């Protein structure tokens, strides 16, 4: 059973989102890391980049697969988790601690559809 913390929101593309004021903290879910297998490389976004909702901002690679991580809203990348540069496996070990990047929402922007834990659990059970 994959772990789905109740205090986070989720995208249909298997990212988790934590809101801290006007900043969104984004990572991948336990379900996503399990599906990918052993993560070996993460291509983090450049801090300062302006992105639109749906843009690919980050790539998470396992030995056999690549997952693209999408921006859930318009905004600016304000931080990338440099700790993962040499320790991509932390995403496997602690998917909800090993955040990937932080996005400051553009003025008036809001994330698209986010699921609560129960709805995400139902989505991955489909």
């Amino acid at each position, binding site marked *: 059973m994959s772990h789905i913390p109740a205090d986070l929101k989720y995208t249909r593309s298997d990212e988790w989102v934590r809101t801290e004021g006007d900043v969104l903290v984004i990572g991948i879910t336990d379900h996503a890391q399990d599906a990918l*297998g*052993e993560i*070996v*490389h993460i*291509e983090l976004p450049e801090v300062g980049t302006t992105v639109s909702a749906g843009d690919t901002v980050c*790539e998470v*690679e*396992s*030995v*056999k697969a*690549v997952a693209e991580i999408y921006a859930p809203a318009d905004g600016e990348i304000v931080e990338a988790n440099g700790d993962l540069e040499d320790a991509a496996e932390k995403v496997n070990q602690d998917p909800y601690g090993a955040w990937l990047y932080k996005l400051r929402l553009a003025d008036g922007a809001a994330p698209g559809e986010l699921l609560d834990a129960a709805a995400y659990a139902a989505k991955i059970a489909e």
Partner: protein
Amino acid sequence: MELRRTPFFDHHVQAGARMVPFAGWEMPVQYAGVRDEHLQVRRSVGLFDVSHMGEVRVRGPRAEDALMWLLSNAVRRIQVGAAQYNALCNERGGTVDDVFVYRMAEDDFLVCVNASNREKDVAFLQAHNPHPGEAEIVDESDAWAQVAIQGPDAVHVVSALTDLPVADLPRHRFLEGTFAGVAGCIVARTGYTGEDGFEVFVPAHLAPPVWPAILEAGARFGIVPVGLGARDTLRLEAGNCLYGHELDEDTSPVQAGLGWIVKLGKPGGFLGSDAIERRKDTDTRRLVNLVVEGKRIPREGMDVRTPSGEVVGRTTSGTLGPSVGHGIAMAYVDHAHTEPGTELVIDVRGREAPAVVIKGPFTRHQS
């Protein structure tokens, strides 16, 4: 279409394998994880279910002559009890399949073919059989299960399961006999991982208990079941071609670096030999091995460029090599850029990954 299941399917499911569709079969892609399975094979020993591979029997007084025409290598030189790598080519010099030929008797051969090509190969071999009355070509795939036991400790595990003198068996030789209590097995010192190891053909209807017997015999070496994921990373590090990636019906085996199994001087030639000869002067690209510098991981289907930006090739396979520790790829590249040491760039989804052409398998290369 209903997916086929190997005789070991229940063992895979019980072991928690992730099952995926592959060439019409429901196969384990990984158990514990690709990297751990891969490293265990290099370090000690791993067990693979390769029952999806096809087996084609070619038998009769002119079986040798038929295969000399149908296949690229010197089939005549295979001794009884030996195996040889071959290409099956079309009239255009493209590769229909790459196969392993086992000589069971003077007039009896077993041809091991890729699962994805089984039906195509059987039809092609039968259609081009030069001696249909004197060389019978029969698809025996359903009669055989197949396991591979690969790694430096494979010989100890196989020795524990048979009275056959497997420890003294040279590479690409095989013995017939009882293995893990099952009579009528073929135990061959062959493999696809770049390690020492064995492939064992087991009569399919008797096969299921063989899987746990091998795991038990290998327990003291820490044997693990290995899925298709690690099978692919192992073969790629070893520089072995995979049909559908490095080889296809438009690609000549010479382009793929398999000139050593293409005997253009065979008397009377072979199917596709004229075209292969002509193509030596006209094919512009050749397969190379590329080692990536830095952390990016190349994948199949990426452009290969010169440092100045000219597109000169395309990758056919790519991964992070778990043993070599960095990105590796095979790519078809214009002849002018195939010398070992040539610096190229792989376009990894819009980002540049510097790469160098190397000679030989990645496992032997020290960067």
